[in-house]
């Protein structure tokens, strides 16, 4: 029993967050460089080790002008069968905001509120089943910065 446990544990060692988290992936632990990268390109590079191609299959919804940079609603939708979805932006000291792990057969329709300290560009990456990267981006004008809180 112990052996089997150990064996299972090995495969998940890098990603196991809690004993109950059977297939959880904490990208902060598996890809630590992603979170310290200060520009979008190197953030994507650190996370996926590849470059994305712009795609019109991704719907990225965000306000063109955000009155409050402390809570900018961003919505991502796509029909691409995705493995993960990542949000980056280029206004804050580091570029990574969030990485969603899409469960098998999962629906990609995420909304989340993010912080931006100044106007900038939000870049969304969708990693498909084959590991190919698709991207969409949008400029957001921030009237009041959100990072100085």
């Amino acid at each position: 029993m112990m052996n089997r446990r150990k064996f299972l544990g090995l495969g998940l060692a890098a990603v196991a967050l809690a004993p109950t988290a059977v297939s959880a992936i904490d990208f902060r632990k598996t890809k630590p460089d992603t979170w310290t990268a200060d520009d979008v390109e190197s953030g994507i590079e650190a996370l996926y080790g590849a470059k994305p191609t712009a795609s019109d299959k991704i719907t990225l919804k965000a306000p063109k002008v955000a009155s409050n940079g402390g809570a900018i609603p961003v919505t991502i939708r796509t029909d691409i069968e995705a493995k993960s979805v990542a949000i980056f932006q280029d206004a804050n000291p580091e570029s990574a905001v969030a990485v969603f792990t899409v469960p098998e057969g999962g629906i990609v329709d995420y909304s989340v509120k993010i912080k931006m300290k100044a106007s900038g560009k939000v870049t969304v990456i969708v990693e498909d089943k084959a590991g190919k990267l698709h991207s969409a981006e949008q400029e957001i004008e921030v009237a009041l910065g959100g990072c100085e809180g």
Partner: protein
Amino acid sequence: MGNMKIKAKEKDGVVKAKVKAKHEMLTYNAAKKKGKEANFITHMMGKVNDKIVFEVSSSQFLSKDPLFKFQFKGKAGDKLVMTWVDLKGNTKTEDKKIK
């Protein structure tokens, strides 16, 4: 209780969920100004019947009391269990029955 607000509603086999986690999400910059330590949610997970339906690794740039909306295939009556972990290792779990 009171650490998370969870809403989950099923329609035609798809559950729409809204989760608001109560967390200061203090960035490094803001924390320095306030003379506090930075702390923010770093990982959040949603499970139904022990199966992961939602998962996100996050940075300091989510808004304060971050609100997530997401969808997954599921049915009413099941329980959605949400768990988050922050930078300091605090963790909170709350559940809600899917309507």
